[in-house]
């Protein structure tokens, strides 16, 4: 197996390296991927030059992610949701002994001294609200600075993971229980798909946000796209938050949701 692995790796590497020589120079602004072939410009040039006029969103990545390639992003979100669901199918043991999650017996008091709990608990009590506030800022400010639904969702999920690490899993599940996070994950997908279907209900294509200015007060077609992107990002953030915490809570307790890490 060792020799086979070495040979396969070397073969793949040589194949790829021989292709590397044909690439454009690293950092070339006029390579085919950046500038297109011949007189036909690449689509990324259109994104750079026309995004602001189309959507009034300075962050091109957010605009492409949530508007031009919204269909792609919708199903990426569905993939994340499916990953969370398959964690349940693989690991969650429903037939075992039922341990009440917020019962005081479930708290692990084996090795930790009180000093550990006091210092880390105090720091986390100070930090967790700040982290959650920052996550909401990242979701909402994704139009003007790096950020958006995926990043904000991961940070929001990490704040619940931090709560579970600082106290124990029961405390975190008391605030964000299994029922709640599964509901939140579904709601996120539904928000995203709802924006798409709303456009269809107004006789446009799926996820063609321009038409939504008819039902949004005080917007024109351009600002409707901008606001719809914000709504879509909120949906993504819901799903990602829920699934990150779902994966952590199942992995850290081996599917029993009693003693965390």
């Amino acid at each position: 197996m060792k020799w086979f692995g070495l040979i396969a790796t070397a073969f793949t590497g040589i194949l790829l390296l021989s292709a590397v020589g044909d690439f454009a120079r690293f950092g070339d602004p006029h390579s085919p991927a950046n500038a297109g072939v011949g007189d036909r410009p690449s689509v990324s040039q259109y994104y750079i030059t026309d995004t602001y006029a189309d959507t009034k969103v300075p962050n091109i990545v957010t605009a492409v992610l949530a508007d031009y390639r919204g269909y792609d992003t919708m199903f990426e979100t569905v993939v994340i949701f499916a990953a969370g669901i398959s964690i349940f199918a693989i690991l969650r043991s429903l037939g075992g002994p039922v341990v009440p999650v917020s019962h005081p017996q479930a708290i692990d008091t084996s090795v930790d001294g009180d000093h550990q709990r006091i210092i880390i608990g105090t720091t986390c009590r100070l930090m967790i609200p700040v982290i959650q506030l920052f996550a909401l800022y990242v979701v909402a400010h994704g139009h003007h600075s790096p950020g958006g639904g995926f990043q904000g969702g991961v940070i929001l999920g990490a704040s619940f993971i931090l709560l579970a690490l600082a106290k124990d899993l029961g405390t975190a599940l008391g605030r964000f229980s299994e029922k709640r996070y599964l509901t939140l994950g579904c709601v996120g997908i539904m928000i995203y798909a709802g924006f798409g279907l709303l456009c269809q209900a107004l006789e446009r294509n799926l996820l063609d946000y321009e038409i939504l200015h008819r039902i949004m007060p005080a917007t024109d077609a351009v600002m409707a796209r901008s606001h719809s992107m914000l709504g879509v990002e909120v949906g993504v953030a819901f799903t990602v938050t829920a699934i990150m915490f779902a994966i952590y809570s199942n992995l850290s307790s081996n599917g029993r949701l009693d003693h965390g890490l």
Partner: protein
Amino acid sequence: MEFLKTSVIPHFNYWVYVILMMIGLHAMITKNNLIKKLVGMTIFQTAIILFYVSIGVKSGSTIPILEHHHDDHAEVAAADAHHGEPAESDHDSDAVNPDHFANPLPHVLMLTAIVVGVSTLGVALAVSQSIFKDFGSLEEDEILEKIKQGGAAIDD
């Protein structure tokens, strides 16, 4: 030396991507431990992302976020103008030069790939926990041996 100058130096990012990919692939094939295989998979995945992001790099470009909201504040322009020439022409909404901004398309494709990657990593880790529950080991050869001895562990 000529080879170095024509082939390696202009493409050094691509060379490192191939090296990282080989490291990851080698780990995925030859490592015995399942967690080590997952570490290799993560390295492989970042190598792919490195390839994509390297394609979108333009030398002398800035990040793909336009500076339009600065135009609202005339004070900023005045504060910036006293050092260097007033290079405000590319900030104008009519004449955005595409060469001044990095290619946003690979960033978009790879941004979702990272989050999807971490959720699939979670699924893979769940599978390895489940395997450990059934077989009591994460080493590939021990698991294969236990399967050969009789598939009692698989049935229940």
